[in-house]
């Protein structure tokens, strides 16, 4: 039966293949693929060239890779893909802050398959890749307009690497001014962990500002933390709560007044395209996640791009090479000045993603970007309204205020009433064909959190179905809490009783480690499994 028209719930079961680990499929002698050999002419001329490897560097025994025929390898990974709930197959409102929007297939077909990107070597002379450089140059122009910044680098291969790159630029900027006492950065608890960890990796001591009673970063605590030691602030707005901080420019001004730079983590930009810009609020640096706002698929955790923008006076510190244009030379690589921080990623980063984001912006134009923003915000406020009526859900902070693209909800009340917490609900929801929602970064701050972002890709009907599932689970929790706690039921596997693996004897991150530790034997369940398979 299709989705129930009244409840909007599906009778769903994810694929469950009871799949072995690839090593268990090995049959000695089987081949997955035959590879080409050197021509006879070549073999005659150089013999078994591998014998030139000196004894100490020669592989003595073959790697213990599995030997599996091709169809079985294909089937195995097809099974694993079916046991994965990508955004292509679910209403992915779940992974809040991650902007799980539709990654258009046309982009994938172009950027993934066209030889003009797939078969390009990154060190080819600029004159041979004018089309690609034009795309990169144009995309930079677009993002400059969208953010108000003066320059962009696409080298950072993820948002966290962008925050780290910005930290390196901050360090170089102050060093160039011989301002060596600036050893601290300030971030807020509801900013992404990379806004603390990036600067920390670059050598800064990090001060974290907690939220005030309305959920905004506490401005008094913030001002008290600023000093001549402050190198930069790394903040976002709205934070994970989705509440736009109208005093953001006051934060920026206060930071500038003590000589600090201001970095805006714009992983959340989706609701603000064409509405408000980082540079106009005074920020010196910002980054966009092209894999969030600009439609690049998330790729089971990458590749990604943290497009890093900056004001003109920081451009000389950006990673090299940068793509520039000259009427005579056409598009060319500029390896910059001695001030550049050098590189953070080899070559030019994930260039295929740039083709995708370029395509997405070209498809939408100014009107489409605006529509993206307003529909994502409308979706979010619509969903918040529906969820506010679900028993057990609490929406903290700033009551009555509009949120932008996401909301941090909590099941605090549900937990108090039923003992069912956010992780229980999270497991259960996948039984209805929805990706597990994301709770919150650590530490949680709010009890039993969950964070949803119904970006513009999702229809009203999608949102209604999503809310129906959460309403159903809330109902189940009030009626039969143990049922929810023992979920999932319709999933690839059942509940992992102890998913935090911290004891050395339990750590097995590879198959060989699992076997060496005898974890296969220690588990009586495994013996039973063998019986099943025989």
């Amino acid at each position, binding site marked *: 039966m299709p989705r129930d028209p009244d409840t909007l719930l599906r009778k769903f079961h994810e694929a469950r293949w009871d799949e072995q680990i690839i090593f268990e499929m090995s049959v000695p002698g089987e081949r997955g693929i035959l590879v080409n050999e050197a021509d006879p002419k070549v073999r005659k001329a150089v013999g078994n*060239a591998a014998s030139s490897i000196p004894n100490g560097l020669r592989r003595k025994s073959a790697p213990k890779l599995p030997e599996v025929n091709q169809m079985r390898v294909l089937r195995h990974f097809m099974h694993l893909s079916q046991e994965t709930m990508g955004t292509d197959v679910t209403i992915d409102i779940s992974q809040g802050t991650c902007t799980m929007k539709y990654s258009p297939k046309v982009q994938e077909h*172009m950027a993934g398959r066209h030889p003009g990107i797939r078969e390009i*070597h990154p060190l080819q002379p600029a004159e041979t890749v004018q089309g690609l450089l034009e795309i990169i140059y144009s995309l930079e122009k677009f993002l400059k307009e969208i953010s108000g910044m003066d320059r962009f680098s696409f080298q950072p291969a993820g948002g*966290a690497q962008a925050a780290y790159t910005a930290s390196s630029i901050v360090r170089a900027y102050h060093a160039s001014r011989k301002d060596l006492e600036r050893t601290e950065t300030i971030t807020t608890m509801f900013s992404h962990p990379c806004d603390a960890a990036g600067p920390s990796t670059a050598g800064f001591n990090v001060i974290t500002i907690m939220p005030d009673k309305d959920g905004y970063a506490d401005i008094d605590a913030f001002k008290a933390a600023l000093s001549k030691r402050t190198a930069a602030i790394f903040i976002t707005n709205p934070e994970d709560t989705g509440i736009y901080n109208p005093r953001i420019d006051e934060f920026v001004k206060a930071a500038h007044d003590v000589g600090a730079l201001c970095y805006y983590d714009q992983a959340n930009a989706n609701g603000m395209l064409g509405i408000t810009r980082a540079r106009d609020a005074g920020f010196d640096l910002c980054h966009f996640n092209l894999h969030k706002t600009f439609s690049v698929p998330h790729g089971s955790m990458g590749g990604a791009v943290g497009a890093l923008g900056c004001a003109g006076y920081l451009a000389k510190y950006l990673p090299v090479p940068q793509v520039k244009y000259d009427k005579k030379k056409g598009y060319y690589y500029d390896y910059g000045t001695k001030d550049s921080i050098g590189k953070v990623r080899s070559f030019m980063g994930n260039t295929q993603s740039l083709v995708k984001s370029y395509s997405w912006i070209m498809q939408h134009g100014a009107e489409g970007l605006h529509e993206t923003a307003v529909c994502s915000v409308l979706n979010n406020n619509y969903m918040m309204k529906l969820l506010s009526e679900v028993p057990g859900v609490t929406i903290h902070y700033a009551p009555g205020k509009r949120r932008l693209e996401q909301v941090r909800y909590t099941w605090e009340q549900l937990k108090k009433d039923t003992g069912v917490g956010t992780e229980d609900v999270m497991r259960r929801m996948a039984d209805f064909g929805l990706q597990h929602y994301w709770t919150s970064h650590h530490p949680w701050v709010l009890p039993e959190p969950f964070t949803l972002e119904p970006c513009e890709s999702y229809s009203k009907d999608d949102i209604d179905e999503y809310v129906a599932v959460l309403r159903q689970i809330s109902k189940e929790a009030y009626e039969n809490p143990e049922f929810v706690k023992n979920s999932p039921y319709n999933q690839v*596997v059942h509940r992992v009783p102890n998913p935090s693996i911290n004891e050395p004897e339990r750590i097995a991150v590879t*198959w060989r480690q699992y076997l060496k530790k005898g974890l296969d034997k220690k588990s009586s369940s495994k013996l039973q499994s063998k019986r099943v398979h025989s």
Partner: protein
Amino acid sequence: MAKERTIFPYIPNSVPEVKAQMLEEVGAKGVMDLYVEIPDRLRFKRKLRLPPPILSEYELKRHVGGLLDKNKNIKQYLSFLGAGCAEHFIPAVCDEINGRGEFLTAYVGEPYADHGKWQALFEYCSLMGELLDMDVLSCPLYDGAQAAATSIRMASRITGRKEVVVQKQLNPEVKLVLRNYLKPDISIREVGFDGTTGLTDLTDLRSKVSSRTAAVLIENPSYLGVLETQAEEIGKITRERRAEFIVYTDPISLGVMAPPSQYGATIACGDFHPLGIPVVAGGGQGGFIATHDDMTYISEFKDLMFGITNTTTPGEYGFGEVLFDRTSYGSREKGKEFTGTSTGIWAITAAVYLSLMGPKGMEETGKTIMQMSQYAAKQMAGIRGVKLQFPRTPFFKEFVVNFDATRAKTVEKVNRALLARGIIGGKDLSKELPELGQSSLYCVTEVRTAEDIHRLVQAIKEVA
């Protein structure tokens, strides 16, 4: 007639009637009312200056395809570029799997609905572990350069020391990353190499490794292609000083070459790009770090680790997070460096590649690469004026060719003339390593044929 509003196919609620219903539900007159929290002074008042949109999918394809058509690609041109991004054979099954929408569009889901992703990444670690003969890997890193940088930071945390010794001829793509990433506290000392053999200068090395040394990092095969035949000795010198011995290796060499762990490396790292991933203008890189099963090392990895474990159902494999608090996701600035979205889709691709190849495929591929590259080197050495920079040192995949004694005199001229003949010559080394004169780094892998080599040789004879 008023212009009709565009209904964007990726924005379902751009349908006015739906929008109106939703606005009513939230009690707002118009969508802009929802932005009431953004003060007027911070509002962007004009329309974004972007090109008019290309609304139809067909026209978009024509437009983007037209731009990409302008690029000269390495299927049309015969390319000898490598230097960290070499052209290798890609089995069709690799592309089939990394094109699967379920993998391509998954992100950070839990190991129930995303069990398959967790298992695929666990298998990536497991297969790499066999190739490297080491027990522990984390989820992938951005690229080999990041893997090298983090390996050194791990070594520094393990030893409490703040110096690292690297080869002068280290791949500049890696070196430039290290120079930034190791700031502000770890200093880099470079050890020279012998201009006739390409091998690390051991005397120089001994003088630079001390009780302050956190690690010695060598590339093997080296950036210049040669096998570092003294690797074991370098390891001994390093370990005598209780420093970590980090070897940056090319995984596709490991069917024929010993993995670093077998000649003393305590940390192996590198880029798994060669394992079934396209060159895609440098977008196909992915980093790995491997160590032995030792908590001293395991605790220092910076990225997520997926451990295999039990579920409540007997006989079922489940997955969980290993030592989550190590990471910046768990502990913010107190975590190990920083973690984030990296290269999951390529790690899954590498897992498919290694599963297909098996031990025999890796051995045969390694052998073919050595045969083809040696053949190419031999043929090129027969051209008047062209000589091999390190003729007596064994090498893998890449080798340095010197053009000092040719009529063309410079690599730049040679490469320009080759390009006119449809060939992309090796990487010009004359600026980064001027002591090698007019030298070029040629990369020859299993995808080259004898015919390709003859074409190259003929062209060089004409132009050099």
